[in-house]
């Protein structure tokens, strides 16, 4: 039965890997914020599977809500597109 838990954990971690890669190579900062929010949601599910309900409560509010809002404020006050 533990295999099912571990498989779900593996899927969330690989989703996190893919979306963190997309967030870092993206040139549009707003899209990158969206990708990093998806990464945060995947990791919140991973924390839940790892039996850490305390961290889920803090992490969902901080990483998905407050953090995205803070970055959107930063992008709105500075530049949106990255020149490589």
């Amino acid at each position, binding site marked *: 039965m533990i295999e099912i838990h571990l498989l779900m954990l593996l899927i969330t971690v690989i989703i996190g890997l893919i979306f963190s890669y997309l967030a870092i190579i993206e040139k549009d*900062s707003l899209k990158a914020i969206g990708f990093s929010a998806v990464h945060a949601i995947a990791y919140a599910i991973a924390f839940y599977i790892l*039996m850490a309900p305390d961290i889920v409560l803090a992490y969902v509010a901080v990483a998905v809500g407050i953090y995205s809002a803070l970055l959107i404020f*930063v992008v709105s006050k500075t530049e949106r597109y*990255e020149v490589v």
Partner: protein
Amino acid sequence: MNEVITFIWTVIILSLIATVIISLYGIARRPNLTKKLIALTIFTDTANLLVVLLGYRLIYPVAPPVLPSFSKEALQTFVKTAVDPLPQAFVITAVVIGMAVNVLIAFAIIQIYRLYGTVDARKLGEKQSTLLKEGGI
């Protein structure tokens, strides 16, 4: 069966390490300061997940570290199934305090944009050297 469990566990740990490497690339090589901040948070989150992974137990059933009922019998099964609570206690403070430190970095980025008119790390270096030559600072 045991080998399957260990194989999945190894893949999980290796993909987390790969995420750490990707985010380090982002911190070091991306020129935009906002993008560096995004990479920094991805790095923090992955490090936190690795710490929580240290306290997990590969058994079934596995339970969160919250005592289900106030009796000595419940305590026996609880100690047999619960995960390690110590890494979780560290990660909770790290998530919230890390957020406060990231707020400070974000404010610094906005202030840099007001003063220099750019958030590109390479242009910032050029502007600072020209300002130093002219004696503007």
